[in-house]
């Protein structure tokens, strides 16, 4: 047993030895062992031959030129395989959309009931616009230009911007922060040119604003906490909290899918 273990330790180092990757003390120990051990020496020799055979593999010429054409880099749709299954993505989008819509309705009712700030019905028009923008799914290769729509522009739902976009080839960070959306209360629908989703809010949706910037579900619990400004209708509050929570789960699930889709086995 001991013999076997000692040899195993040396044999594990043979490869590094070939690449001159051993520390001086390891090197000395191995070389001294090799001097006395025919079987490890034989194995080293066979490893050397193996590496030599690999290095002698013919280098195949490229079968053609891989030079890119402008068409290839401009209009080529990103490869679909990076996305999670379309059914799942669509399901999540529908769920996200439905929840966002329901949340919006509830919030509007809440706000108009408390007779306070101007309702945000108009911003719900952005919803449709924004949803079209990021309709394509899949891991984009453009630097941040295409995103994977997690929840289609839930303009009234806090924090649920579809930012877990692809382009993961270079080991890219998934979430690109949307600049300047914190505390953005303007109701102007203004999709940014890079296709990033800016979650617009109306002044009425103060509780939503605090959770805007990143597509992180962590923002959403804050919403439910802030949602007790008014001691209005308990039912409405519960509905808001429940919907916001459910939306958070959907967004979290979609983000997790996007990340898992790019993860490589170690």
């Amino acid at each position, binding site marked *: 047993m001991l013999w076997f273990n000692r040899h195993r330790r040396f044999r594990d180092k043979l490869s590094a030895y070939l*690449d001159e990757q051993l520390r001086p003390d390891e090197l000395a120990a191995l070389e001294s062992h090799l001097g006395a051990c025919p079987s490890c020496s034989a194995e080293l020799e066979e490893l050397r*031959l193996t590496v030599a055979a690999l*290095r002698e593999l013919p280098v*195949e010429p490229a079968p053609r030129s891989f030079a*890119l054409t402008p068409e290839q880099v401009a209009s080529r749709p990103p490869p679909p395989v990076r996305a999670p299954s379309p059914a799942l993505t669509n399901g999540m989008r529908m769920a996200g959309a439905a929840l966002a819509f329901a949340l919006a309705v509830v919030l509007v009712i809440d706000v108009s009931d408390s007779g306070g700030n101007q309702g945000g019905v108009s911003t719900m028009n952005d919803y449709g616009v924004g949803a079209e923008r990021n309709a394509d799914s899949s891991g984009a*290769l*453009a630097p941040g230009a295409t995103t994977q729509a997690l929840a289609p522009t839930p303009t009234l739902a806090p924090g649920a911007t579809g930012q877990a976009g692809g382009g993961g080839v270079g080991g890219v960070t998934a979430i690109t922060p949307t600049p300047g959306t914190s505390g953005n209360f303007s109701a102007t629908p203004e999709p940014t040119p890079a296709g990033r989703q800016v979650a617009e809010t109306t002044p009425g949706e103060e509780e939503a604003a605090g959770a805007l910037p990143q597509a992180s579900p962590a923002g959403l619990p804050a919403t439910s906490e802030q949602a007790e400004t008014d001691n209005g209708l308990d039912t409405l509050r519960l509905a808001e909290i429940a919907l916001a929570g459910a939306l958070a789960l959907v967004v979290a699930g979609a983000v997790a899918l996007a990340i898992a889709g790019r993860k*490589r086995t170690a």
Partner: protein
Amino acid sequence: MSATVQTSSDEGDLIARSRKGDLPAFNLLVERYQTPLFNFCLRVLRSPQAAEDATQEAFISAYRALGRFRGGSFRAWVFRIAVNACYDELRRRRARPALSLDRPERGEGPLLEPPSDAPTLQEHAERRELERAIQAALARLPEDQRVAVVLCDIQGMDYAEIAEAVGVSLGTVKSRISRARARLRTLLMAHGELLPSRFRPTSEGT
């Protein structure tokens, strides 16, 4: 074999221009890396067609991702993209195993035309034999080990560059290479008759 090199200045210039949308400049980079990238994909994926697709994929991705290149070894960076393209293809194959049956595994046709520099038929036949034996052995490695050993012993990258290209630690690289070589040794030596004679271990050793 090339050691790890920092991006040379003319390459740096090409990269800078490419980032600004200078496609011809990028295509000079493509020219420089297409043969190594294609060979890498070929050894990992075994199929010339798949290798071609993965290589094309990788260059398109690389162009689009140029904004994210932060300096350091451009070779490792572009190989990383190729590694990912290969993993994608391998994953696709796992998802649809039936379709991979028609991929040529042995004796892929176009590659086995006599290279113009082979002096004799004998030597050419030996090369084919070697290629077939190694390709078969590589195919039996787990994918991670295959990628590591191809980058090391076929592309000539050092451990640090491989770690960058694959996105794992140096220790993981060392261990994958060690295991890959040990397994290849077992496979190749066991079927020594497939190897050209100079690769068969002799009793005297060398």
